[in-house]
């Protein structure tokens, strides 16, 4: 396992109104990874980011970044952390380059026109450097926020819902930007409720709900462990009951016996092999079929299923 870059232990936040936004969160982020924190609205994602970045005062727990205590050695640690907020919060009257230079200076770094140019070019903002931020499109504004967060060359970058409300094209473009950050060695923690985003980008995934981390795992391992294959086989003639050689598979009859539904596997492809065996067994049993629809479960299915299980337990 790589060195931990961020370690949260027993992190709890109770707001003055009594809302427990974070409930005893333990989380370790590894250096160089892209970590996706998934959760529905109000799950505590932004509060968690706020606690690390100094926007929220934790009620209890410890936070360590780069091996330093974030509450006592906050200056050194914060100088290496960047944040791209969810809201488009910036001085809209300010020219792009001016805003990015300010961010670099605010974090205590000497002016470096070459570095600022490099950042602006990498985000396709160089041509807009003298434009006021208010003159840019929504997507460009979000890029400015990324440029501001990158201006002090952070080692750990938080992206809070980086693609919320942006169109598909821009979302894919943003994914390329995040990939480029990883290539530069930046550890990225992104929160999102677009599961597709986590599926596309993340090395590891954490699922948070009501301030509690429900699960943290490698994305591929999580999908292998919790993933399923689902196949629908449309029969040529309806069946009244499944013969024993077919019933040994994890199947059931649907649509009044007109189709067989298979649910099994583990997300590693084992399910597809079993579906192939099932079709052979059907032919061997003289059961004809006219169509097959096979689908691997997505991270979204896992996410929904996990949250559903949690709801069930709570009830």
């Amino acid at each position, binding site marked *: 396992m790589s060195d931990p870059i961020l370690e949260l232990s027993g992190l709890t936040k109770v707001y003055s109104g009594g809302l427990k936004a974070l409930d005893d969160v333990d989380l370790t982020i590894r250096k160089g990874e892209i970590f996706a924190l998934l959760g529905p609205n109000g799950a505590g994602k932004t509060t968690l980011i706020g606690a690390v*970045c*100094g*926007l929220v005062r934790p009620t209890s727990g410890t936070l360590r970044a780069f091996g330093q205590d974030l509450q006592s050695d*906050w*200056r050194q640690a*914060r100088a290496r952390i960047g944040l791209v907020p969810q809201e488009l919060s910036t001085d809209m009257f300010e020219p792009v380059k001016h805003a990015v230079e300010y961010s670099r200076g*605010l974090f*205590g*770094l000497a002016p470096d026109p070459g570095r600022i140019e490099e950042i602006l070019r990498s985000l396709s903002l160089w041509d807009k450097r003298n434009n006021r931020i208010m003159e840019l499109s929504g997507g460009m504004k979000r890029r400015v926020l990324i440029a501001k967060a990158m201006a002090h060359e952070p080692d750990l970058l938080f992206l809070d819902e980086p693609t919320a409300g942006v169109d598909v094209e821009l979302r894919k473009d943003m994914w390329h930007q995040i990939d480029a950050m990883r290539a530069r060695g930046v550890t990225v923690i992104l929160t999102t409720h677009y599961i597709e985003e986590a599926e596309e980008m993340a090395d590891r995934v954490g699922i948070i709900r009501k301030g509690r981390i429900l699960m943290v795992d490698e994305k591929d391992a999580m999908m292998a462990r919790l993933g399923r294959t689902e196949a629908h086989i449309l029969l040529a003639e309806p069946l009244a009951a499944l013969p024993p050689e077919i019933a040994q598979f994890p199947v059931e009859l649907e649509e009044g016996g007109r189709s067989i539904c298979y649910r099994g596997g583990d997300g590693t492809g084992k399910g597809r092999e079993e579906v192939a065996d099932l079709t052979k067994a059907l032919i061997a049993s003289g059961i004809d079929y006219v169509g097959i629809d096979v689908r691997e479960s997505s991270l979204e299915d896992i996410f929904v299923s996990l949250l559903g299980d949690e709801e069930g337990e709570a009830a």
Partner: protein
Amino acid sequence: MIFNARSAWSIYRRELWRFLRTAFQSVLAPVLTTALYILVFGSAIGDRMPDVGSVDYGAFIIPGLLMLTLLGETTSNSSFGIYMPRFTGTIYELLSAPVGVAETLVGFVGAAATKSLILAAIILLTARIFVPYDIAHPFFAFVFILLVAASFSLFGFILGIWADSFEKLGIIPMLILTPLTFLGGTFYSIADLPAPWDTVALVNPIVYLVSGLRWTFYGSADVSIWVSLGLTLAFLFTCTAVIAYIFRTGWRLRD
């Protein structure tokens, strides 16, 4: 104590840039208002008013009018400086930066105080066009204006953190500072008030500021310059302590 000079300089420079960006509103408007006061009360009506002590009435009101503008503009500039980032959400950047109370104060309050000094210089030069006056103690005048600008920048900073609406932001300068300055001897000497109002007036803290500044201009005032200086310094330290407490507890800054 660690002090990040680059961070402080960045905040300071940006705040001044913001000031220059809105120079028409932030410089011209207060200068024009003060110039009108001086023109009407100093030049037009002042000729028919008796001297106050040995000072011509037109010249007598200049320190008070300068204080009136200085207090209002300094408090407003400083309070807007910190309130706007809170209102628009851009304060996230300041709070997530390796920046403490010292850098924040040097940046925001220093910039607000600088704006006030620029404004004061322009007002004094403009006043010279309408009313002849001399400054008896220029060094003390500079120090006193600097102290008032710094302390009310700090006060405005507290106001900007306390306020949770634009209405609250305007209440203190409009409903408290301006009336207190008008009643604080801007247009008259406290000594000329009938008893017991000459004593009651001393409860008004602005009296000490107007009086202190007037002393630096003409060498005489309603209260001792040392009392004025002492109270101004006490106000400055109190505001600094309050801001240090706000940063330590995160009141209205961090959830």
